[in-house]
């Protein structure tokens, strides 16, 4: 993350704000994960979405089910919006990937479960296409997600793209589907499928140019 913040500044950013909307108490999670310290060291403002005043009631015109929501104002108003997820196993939706990460830009995350979780995740993503998606797949959580503690694997990869559907389709293959025992195909994750139906990106990785670069 620190490297990403540095790159933002190198690219001419005036100010970088790192937002996190945590499940647990933000003070504890920020301190335990070291997020606050790392972010501030790199010169960014590390902010938590625990107060309702940082959200704004917004219409989601292209949504199928979630028509209005309270969305983080910075996401709507900032010049550049980078989505920075960690892939994790998730019991309810199979996997937490880039698009599911964006649930955090909403004030009321729990409400989505009452409507239709997968469709809502796709709906949120129609609101603003992230200018860049960076998936930190250096270490991923494969069991007991999303909170853990569970088994981890180290693919040691960082996936970056402007196409969130393609990124999620790519990252899904890190995990094995317990039913088939084979890596997940993107269509098996319903929110990825729905997002593709919305025309948010390309689900078929054969149509995407995947360029692998070695960092070493």
């Amino acid at each position: 993350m620190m490297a990403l913040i540095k790159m933002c500044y190198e690219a001419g950013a005036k100010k970088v704000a790192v937002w996190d909307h945590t499940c647990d108490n933000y003070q504890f999670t920020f301190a335990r994960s070291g997020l606050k310290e790392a972010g501030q060291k790199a010169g960014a403002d590390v902010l938590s979405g625990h107060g309702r005043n940082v959200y704004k009631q917004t219409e989601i015109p292209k949504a199928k089910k979630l028509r209005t929501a309270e969305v983080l104002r910075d996401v709507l108003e900032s010049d550049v919006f980078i989505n920075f997820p960690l892939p994790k196993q998730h019991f309810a939706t199979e996997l937490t990937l880039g698009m599911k990460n964006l649930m955090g830009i909403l004030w009321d995350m729990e409400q989505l479960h009452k409507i239709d979780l997968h469709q809502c995740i796709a709906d949120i993503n129609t609101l603003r296409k992230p200018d860049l998606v960076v998936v930190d797949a250096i270490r991923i959580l494969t069991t007991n997600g999303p909170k853990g503690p569970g088994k981890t694997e180290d693919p040691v990869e960082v996936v970056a793209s402007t196409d969130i559907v393609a990124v999620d389709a790519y990252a899904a293959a890190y995990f094995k589907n317990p039913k088939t025992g084979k890596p997940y195909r993107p269509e098996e994750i319903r929110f990825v499928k729905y997002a593709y139906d919305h025309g948010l990106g390309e689900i078929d990785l054969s149509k995407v140019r995947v360029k692998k670069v070695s960092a070493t």
Partner: protein
Amino acid sequence: MTRALLCLRRSIQALSFCFLLYLILQTAFPLELKIPVDLYLRLDPFIGIISLFTQKEMIWRMLPALGVLVLVILFGNFFCGWFCPMGATIDFFDRVLFREKKRSKPLDDRSLRRLRYGVLIFALTAGLMAFQVIYLLDPISLITRSMVIAFYPPAIFVYNHLLPPIQSLLPGNGLIVSSIPLPLFKVNLFIFLFFVAVLALGVIRKRFWCRYLCPLGTLFSICSRFRILTRFVTDDCTRCQKCVKECPVGAIPGDTPEQYRQQDCVTCLKCLECPPQAVSFHFASPQLKTVEGVNLSRRYVLGSFAFGLASSLVIKTNPLQSESGRTNNRLIRPPGSLPEERFIAACTGCAECLKVCPNNALQSTFLEAGLAGLYTPRLVPRIGYCEEFCNFCGRVCPTEAIQPITLEEKRLIQVGVAHINKTRCIAWDTDKICLVCNEQCSYQAIIGDDKKRPIVKEEKCTGCGICENKCPVDGESAIIVYASGVQKKLKPEPEAEPNNPQG
């Protein structure tokens, strides 16, 4: 010189009050202050003595209180007049809002002055019977509780409402601050009204509370009988009655102003403002004699004793306090609490734990825990849940009613067990996918079955209540934590299995 002394006293009172407020505000994450945030409560010998009585053992945290007691025995009661934040508040409101009513004839308060001794005897008796409601009258506990429960949430409310206009005034995104989640406390109105009532008593007499009711003041009174810092009046006294009128605790009798009741004096030094400059304070050998002392007859003492005894017995036989009637399984105590009976005996109801709880999960009870458990903390998961890596409530409890425990111990304490109401649960009742409880659970105590419906594993559930808190069902949650009676210790997880990328 005199004026300077009086100014100094007033400044110290104001500082003492502000310091209490500061400590209360610091009673929050990350709790890294060098001085204990419950300092005032630890300095309170009344709490120290009663907790000694109720728990029948020394609480080492309360040791500083003994130091205060020794100082008071030596120098007389200086605490009430100089340092007590409750006294400072009462003094302030006596000046600005609740002015003493003018009387043609001075009030004969001899019977009233006896009252506080009755209260203290009642308190000590009840304390021996392990019944602590009298803590509610302790001034330090009272002001801490009132500040936390009645005044802190409104302050945050105002702050949150002022925040957007301030943010819009600043250019650009000058200030991005999330508003503070509004703390909510039950019974706040009762506590507010009681606090205001205590202040409003000043209409009858200045410092009415301090001189006729406060049990801490009474304790100090008894101890400062043999004070070595005493008041002297020279023959210059013209009996102008200024000091008699000015004395905030009525320690100077009207017909003999050259004498005073050394036990009642709070050393506020107001009587130094004497027109002929006849009054002075200096060190002298202690005197036994006093004027117009209270008439503590045997009848009165025994009466107070019997009243305390009978009240404790009546409360002890209240259905909620007795073994058979303890059926309130929604009464979840904070992790590390003493067993219920000892807990309500030890808890002072000071609300420090309510303030420090990062998720506003601890709420003060009204009658849910019976009469003896008034204003004790309970976990209300629908309002807030118990944070996994937090043991703050035990760290701030002055009487160790909530034991100080390590994080590792805390994570293995089962305060309750979650139960799913399958008729209301989204996953069980409809075919929608939810499992918020599963993803929120920090202890992996909720697993999903093959149809993605939640099931609670009792042996892992700590009763932290995050599932009940986050359950998206409207109103009452579809998953509810019930107290497990006595807090249990769970078996620790076996060491994490080595990572197996193939598995």
